[in-house]
């Protein structure tokens, strides 16, 4: 059966930690990195589980700063 696999790259230097993507992810795979800030002093978002990502692009669409790049592909297993 084919399965859709996705991956995201978050530009953590551009991210401001607004967490809109955290709420937009249908699987809850994103989180604000605990107790970390980027070079501008903002908290930033990381993906804590990349196994279940389907590359639906919800996080990228809602991101106000355009920090998220999304890749998607089909696997046959």
């Amino acid at each position, binding site marked *: 059966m084919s399965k859709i696999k996705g991956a995201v790259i978050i530009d953590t230097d551009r991210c401001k930690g607004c967490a*809109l993507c955290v709420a937009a992810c249908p699987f809850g795979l994103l989180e604000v990195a605990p107790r970390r800030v980027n070079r501008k002093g903002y908290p930033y978002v990381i993906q804590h589980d990349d196994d279940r990502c389907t*590359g639906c692009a919800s996080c990228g669409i809602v991101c106000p700063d355009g920090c998220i790049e999304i890749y998607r592909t089909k696997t046959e297993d």
Partner: protein
Amino acid sequence: MTREDIIQPQNLVYAKPSLMNDVGMHYCPGCSHGVVHKLIAEVIEEMNLADKTIGICPVGCAVFAYRYLDVDWLEAAHGRAPAIATACKRLWPDRLVFTYQGDGDLACIGTCETIHALNRGEKITLIFINNAIYGMTGGQMAPTTPLGMKTATCPYGREAELHGYPLNITDMAATMPGTAYVSRQSVHNVAAIRKAKRAIRKAFENSMNGRGSNMVEILSTCNAGWKMTPLKANQWMEENIFKLYRLGDLKDE
């Protein structure tokens, strides 16, 4: 399949639009301006009009919009963007001319320019970011602030007796004979963002086809001015602002 196998150029499905510059935006975290900037960049890119677009910047939070999108921009005096857009479009009829204005710029100090440019049927598009507050100056009451909303200059909530009623300038625009397409959208979730993009595309196509003036109002959040988290601001907007300002196309001819 490893993460490295998925991250290949041919698998890219979404990224920051290429018309958006790499310079970091000055907007507060979670501000709706960024989403609307992205939508405008995507629409211009899809319409292949990057070399033929002239945007007019407002005064307000979006005053630095010219730093973020890689198209030609002009900076207008406070509220005068529709007047400058009129001149641009009349001198270069083949260009896509749009203004990008907030509610303090478009609905308060620039009411005269807005109403007359729309009513003359200039072939321009007005993108109206309505966050019901003066964001840049620190959250004062705007003409579009709903009754009962607390701001720095109406700390007990807006009262009709004292402050008058909220100004619904988009509904006003829909009644004008000069407008071709008037729409009100929001960008609080994925579905709404997709709809807003379609509305912006339609407005831009109309103004390129010379079909009267177009206005797209985007209901936005100002989480810093509203003193809320970005998520809470979205919820608050759904509960309170959507009651006053109806979403959807108000006029489509």
